[in-house]
C-alpha cells in the first residue's frame, strides 16, 4: 500500500514537471506550429543555473529559481531568432533538427561549465521524509506539485484574463487576423518561446533536488515530456496537463511493480495509443479541407 501511495506522489510530482514542459510545447506549437526539441537541455540549464545560484553564490532559493527562469527565458529568445525564424520559410520540419542542434550545443556548453558529474542539489525543505499512509514522501515532491499547480493556474489565468494572453491566443488562431487587430505577431511568437523556455527552466530547478542535477538530466526528461504532450494532444493545454500527469503516474506505478520495464512500457504505450488516437487522447476532431 505504501508503495502505491509513494508511486502516486512521486508520479504526480514528476508528472507535474512533464506537464509544465508539455504546456511549453503547446504554447509554441499553437503560435508557430513548431516546438523546441531541445527543451530537455533548457530544463537542464535551468537546473544548473539555479544550482549555481543557490550553492555557489548562496542566493536564496526563490532568487535562484527566478534567475534560472530569466537566463533560460533569454535562451528561448535566442532560440527563436537563430533556429526558428530563419527556418520558417525554408524547410518544413527543419525546426525539429535545428532545435535538436541548439540543444546539443547547449549540452556541450553546460559540460564545459559544470562538468559531467551528478551534483546533489540540497532541497531547501530538507531531506526529512514525511509520512503519509505509511509512505515516505519528500517535502520537495509536495513543493513540486504545489508550485506546478500554481504556475499552471497562473498561466491559464494569464491566457484567459490578460490582454496579452488573449493576443497570444489570437495569434495562435490566425496570424493574419491577429495582426489586423494591431497585434505585433513576431513579438507574440518571441514571447511564446520565452515563456516555453522559462517553464522548462522552472521545471528543471524544482525537480533537480529530487533527481540530482547533471548535464545529462535533460535528454530523458525532455523526451518524456514531449511524449506527454503528444499523448494528451499537443494543441490542447488541458491535454498536455492530463498527458503529463498520466504519464508520470503510469511511469512510477510500473516502476514500483517492475523497475526494468519502466521506460520501455512508457514509450511502447505511446505507440499503441497514437495508433488508436493519432492526434492525442484529448484532441478535438478536425475537418480536413481540401
Amino acid at each position, binding site marked *: 500500500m505504501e508503495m502505491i501511495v509513494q508511486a502516486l506522489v512521486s508520479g504526480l510530482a514528476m508528472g507535474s514537471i512533464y506537464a509544465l514542459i508539455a504546456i511549453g510545447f503547446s504554447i509554441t506549437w499553437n503560435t508557430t506550429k513548431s516546438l523546441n526539441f531541445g527543451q530537455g537541455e533548457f530544463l537542464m540549464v535551468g537546473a544548473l543555473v539555479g544550482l549555481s545560484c543557490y550553492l555557489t553564490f548562496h542566493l536564496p532559493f526563490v532568487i535562484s529559481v527566478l534567475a534560472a527562469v530569466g537566463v533560460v527565458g533569454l535562451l528561448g529568445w535566442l532560440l527563436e531568432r537563430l533556429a526558428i525564424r530563419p527556418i520558417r520559410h525554408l524547410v518544413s520540419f527543419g525546426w525539429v533538427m535545428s532545435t535538436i542542434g541548439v540543444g546539443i550545443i547547449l549540452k556541450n556548453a553546460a559540460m564545459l561549465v559544470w562538468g559531467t558529474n551528478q551534483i546533489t542539489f540540497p532541497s531547501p525543505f530538507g531531506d526529512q521524509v514525511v509520512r503519509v499512509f505509511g509512505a515516505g514522501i519528500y517535502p520537495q515532491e509536495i513543493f513540486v506539485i504545489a508550485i506546478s499547480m500554481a504556475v499552471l493556474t497562473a498561466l491559464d489565468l494569464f491566457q484567459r484574463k490578460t490582454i496579452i494572453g*488573449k493576443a497570444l491566443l*489570437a495569434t495562435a488562431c490566425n496570424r493574419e487576423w491577429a495582426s*489586423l*487587430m494591431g*497585434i505585433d*505577431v513576431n513579438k507574440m511568437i518571441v514571447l511564446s518561446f520565452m515563456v516555453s523556455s522559462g517553464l522548462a527552466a522552472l521545471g528543471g530547478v524544482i525537480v533537480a533536488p529530487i533527481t540530482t542535477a547533471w548535464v545529462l538530466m535533460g535528454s530523458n526528461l525532455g523526451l518524456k515530456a514531449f511524449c506527454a504532450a503528444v499523448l494528451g494532444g499537443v494543441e490542447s493545454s488541458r491535454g498536455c496537463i492530463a498527458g503529463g500527469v498520466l504519464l508520470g503516474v503510469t511511469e512510477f506505478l510500473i516502476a514500483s511493480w517492475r523497475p526494468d520495464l519502466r521506460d520501455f512500457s512508457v514509450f511502447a504505450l505511446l505507440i499503441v495509443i497514437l495508433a488508436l488516437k493519432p492526434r492525442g487522447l484529448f484532441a478535438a476532431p478536425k475537418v480536413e479541407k481540401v
Partner: protein
Amino acid sequence: MLVLENIRVHYGKVEALKGVSMRIDRGEIVSVIGGNGAGKTTLLKTITGLLRPTTGRVVFQGQDISSRQPHHVTGLGVVMVPEGRGIFPELTVEDNLLLGAYSRYFKTRRSELRQDVEQELRRFPILEKRRRQLAGTLSGGEQQMLAFARGLMAKPRILLLDEPSMGLSPVMIKETFAFISDLNAQGATIVLVEQMASFALSISHRAYVLEVGNLVLEGAGEDLIDNPEVKRAYLGG
C-alpha cells in the same frame, strides 16, 4: 484620405494587380466590385500591409504606408474586417471586442475601453445577450455583427470591409448593407469590397470595377448600377 498610386502586386509569378490607382475621400463609401479572382481582396490586403506592392504606393493621410507592417497600419486607423469575418472562435464575444481595441489598448484607460465595449454591445443587442459566449458558436449573421463591432472598437479613421455579404442569408445581407449605410451616415469613411454588386453600388458614392487585376471602370454608384459593362464583368458574354 487614402490614395493608391499605380499599385502592382505579385503572388509569386502571377500579377494579381496590374497598375491600379484609386482615391477615397473622407466620408465616402467607395465600392470595389468585380468577379472572382479580380484582385479585390488582394487590394485590401495591400492597403493594410499584409501584402507589399511590387511597385506603386499606398498613401494614407499624406503618409506613405506601402511598406508598413499590418499592426502599424491598424494603429494608424486603417482597420480591415477580413473576408470570412476573422473573428477568433475560441475567445468570447467580449474578448473579441477587447482585442479589436488592441492597437489603442495601452494608450487608453481601462474604464474608457469598458465603456466602448458596452457601447458596441448596445449597438448590437444580440451580441449583448451572447457577450460571454465563445464567438465560434455564433451564427453567420451574428459573427458579421461582431466583426463590425470589433472593427469599430479600434476607432478607425477608415474602415475596409472585405466581402461582408459572404456566406450570409439574403435577409442578413440586406441588414448588413443597411448597417454599412448607417455607419457612413454617421460619418465613417468606408471602402467596400463586394461580389454582390447591386447591393454595394446602391449604397456607394463611388465605385471601381476590377477585372483580373485591372481597373476597367470607375464612376458614381448610381451610374454604374445600370451599366451593361458591369453585368459583363460578372457574367461574361
